[in-house]
């Protein structure tokens, strides 16, 4: 075996040595943090994925040591391999920041933004992306596109309006199942995920399309409208499954198992099993084993991705930290009675009552008392 060559690559001023053949995105992920470009369509476990969403565009300011010319256009970091001495600008490049804001705007253009009723909310990559790189207002003033509804069977719910056409589910079906029955029909902005004609997805491993979907286009029908992900406690668990690794994350509330997903790493991708294979799980584990007694619980799961899920759970234990500043300190010495002025937001409380004058925690009685007094 020949010795592996290593290339030096600098991303946003941070230099790292990676094996030849590594992509810019993977190198940047090794550095981690802000330096890693966001990726909506790239999925390291799926061969051929990436290059489509254009959120991971970066500027290559120096091609390599041998050929230091910069690349003329922004390149998709997920599909561009590093060269020795390459210098990459991600968040330090104005061009990248501008282009990325444009891509986020394009992705949200026809997205329904129905997060309040979307099961993906809270663990949605598009939410994170628009929070990190998007703008708070849209310039799009036309009707958003809609689609004819397609039924994909009893386990998987398709919401085509939310889809960003990342092709991940297509690659998943190609690479995990023996026969893909769904795909992209039509083209351009009316391209859609569908089956031809009206088939259901019933392969034993097809449930993984739910895990790879970066948005709420493909969701779990057995979990539909049952709960919000941030109210659930993710727990690592396993079972002896004859067809898959059986290593999953259970999403519990109390003792009740609301849903089962594969274990995901900090990039939202399926974690590898100890033997180095991607930990895809089978439909039986995902959809049918919804009793705590089916599983051996290992312990709470760290959710390290930018996400609301870990908020409120296991503070200080698994990635989240207890704030050290007191309210008094951040509030300029004032200790508020209430944390939020609900007068501005709702008509539930009487606007003529100054909440700051109420001593202690307020409740219905307090209001009546003051009003009557």
């Amino acid at each position: 075996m020949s010795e592996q060559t290593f290339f030096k690559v600098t991303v946003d001023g941070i230099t790292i040595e990676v094996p030849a053949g590594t992509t810019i995105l993977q190198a940047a992920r090794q550095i981690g943090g802000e330096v890693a470009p966001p990726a909506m369509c790239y999925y390291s476990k799926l061969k051929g994925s990436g290059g489509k969403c254009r959120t991971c565009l970066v500027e290559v300011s120096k091609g390599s040591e041998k050929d230091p010319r910069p690349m003329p256009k922004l390149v998709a970091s997920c599909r561009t391999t590093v060269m020795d001495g390459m210098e990459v600008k991600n968040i330090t490049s104005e061009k990248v920041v501008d282009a990325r804001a444009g891509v986020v705007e394009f992705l949200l253009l026809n997205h329904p933004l129905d997060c309040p009723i979307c099961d993906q909310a809270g663990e949605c990559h598009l939410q994170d992306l628009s929070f990190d790189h998007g703008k708070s207002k849209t310039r799009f003033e036309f009707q958003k596109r809609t689609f004819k509804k397609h039924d994909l069977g009893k386990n998987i719910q398709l919401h085509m309006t939310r889809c960003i056409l990342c092709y991940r589910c297509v690659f998943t079906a190609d690479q995990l199942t023996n026969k893909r029955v769904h795909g992209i029909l039509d083209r351009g902005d009316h391209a859609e995920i569908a089956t031809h004609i009206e088939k259901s997805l019933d392969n034993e491993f097809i449930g993984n399309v739910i895990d790879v979907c970066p948005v709420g286009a493909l969701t779990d029908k057995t979990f539909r409208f049952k709960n919000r992900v941030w109210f659930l406690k993710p727990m690592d668990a396993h079972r002896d499954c004859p067809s898959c690794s059986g290593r999953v994350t259970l999403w519990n509330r109390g003792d009740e198992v609301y849903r089962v997903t594969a274990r995901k790493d900090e990039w939202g991708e399926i974690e590898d099993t100890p033997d180095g294979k991607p930990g895809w799980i089978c439909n039986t584990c995902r959809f049918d084993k919804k009793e705590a007694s089916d599983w051996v619980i290992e312990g709470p799961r760290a959710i390290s991705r930018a996400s609301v899920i870990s908020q409120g759970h296991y503070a200080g234990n698994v990635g989240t930290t207890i704030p050290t500043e007191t309210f008094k300190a951040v509030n300029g010495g004032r200790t508020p009675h209430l944390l939020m002025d609900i007068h501005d937001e709702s008509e539930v409380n009487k606007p003529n009552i100054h909440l700051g004058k109420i001593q202690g925690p307020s409740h219905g009685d307090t209001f009546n008392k003051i009003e009557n007094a």
Partner: protein
Amino acid sequence: MGVKLLLDKANVPGIRTYEVYRREGGYRSVEKALKQMTTDEIVEEVKKSGLRGRGGAGFPTGMKWSFIAKPEGVPRHLVCNADESEPGTFKDRYLMEFLPHLLIEGLIVSSFALGSNDTYIYIRGEYAWITNILEQAIEEAKAAGFLGKNILGTGFDCNIHVQRGGGAYICGEETALIESLEGKRGNPRIKPPFPAIQGLWMRPTVVNNVETLAAVVPIINMGGEEYAKIGVGKSTGTKLISACGNINKPGVYEIDMTITVEEFIYSDEYCGGIKDGKKLKACIPGGSSVPILPANLLLTTAKGEPRYMNYESLSDGGFATGSMLGSGGFIVLDEDQCIVKNTYTLARFYRHESCGQCSPCREGTGWMEKILQKIETGKGEMSDIDLLWDIQRKIEGNTICPLGDAASWPVAAAIRHFRDEFEWHVKNPELSQTSNFGLQHYADPIHVPA
């Protein structure tokens, strides 16, 4: 009268048949190339000729051929891109319809040079009748021993297969064409790897335009150096221009790239002037995706020099004051044409033809179309013009394939050169529905005889 290398025999009666074509000196280049030249010598001749890809990008053909990987035991392929779908471009149609054997001849020589035993013609689906013409020509060539096994006793085998597309503009992009040829959805591939390394069925592949491959015939017949003497600078040889729009004589013309744009539009040998004695307003000189130019910048460059019909002169001044020769789809607009409507029509086309693979193009083209429709129907606002500019800027260069650029350039150029017309549309919502902006300062500087 300029030099004609491709269309010189186009008017010979019966030239479509093998007998007449052969009698007129056809297939000489095959005999010369296969019997007297090595493959490297052919590539060298094409390099010397300075031939540039006629499909639109203008990449030097000889250089493209020399990039093809030659791994042991892996077949190589030549693919002829006959998916001519650029609005305003119809030169390949003419060439294939009237001189099918010229293309076949060029394909045999090129296949020999590249070592392709199975060569494909990917023709756009709408050219159904041309498919029949080509297949007929292939049969005739095969019967005459120019195709099939052991051509002319040289031991070289070559078969040409004609494959019809399904009617998608995007399949004119070489990697999308390859995907479609493989029977898949016509989505452009992400490059690298380039087709020269991994193309059709992951084998080294060269994709060339119909006209490029036809031009190989005169190059072999007359020699690369002789060919390079025609034309000027890096624009060597002849170019087919498909002229259309408001001109007296629309059609396909072969030019030798030394004539001026003014001569091309106004001389009786070519377009014959603007129809009905009207004035020239604007022109899209190289197929719908290249920037539109107002009359004053079309006929002379920003420096005041006359503009010529060649690659360098038309792109003089960059996109700020220039355009591109592109595929040679020469669309002329007279004083009565509305630039906003024209841009809207183009935007609608690109929205319809975007493959939907990458987000800037998929979403951006639809958005631009909606805004242009809004302005065109008199509901536009001033901010829409700036918004359009910003959208096209965010699409351009950020997509997988050049369709994103092709969709944004016409919009950018229209706003760059005709911003006052857009503003007029916004300010006069009712008037703009019944009348046109007219010429204003884009007035035709040429005196048109009555």
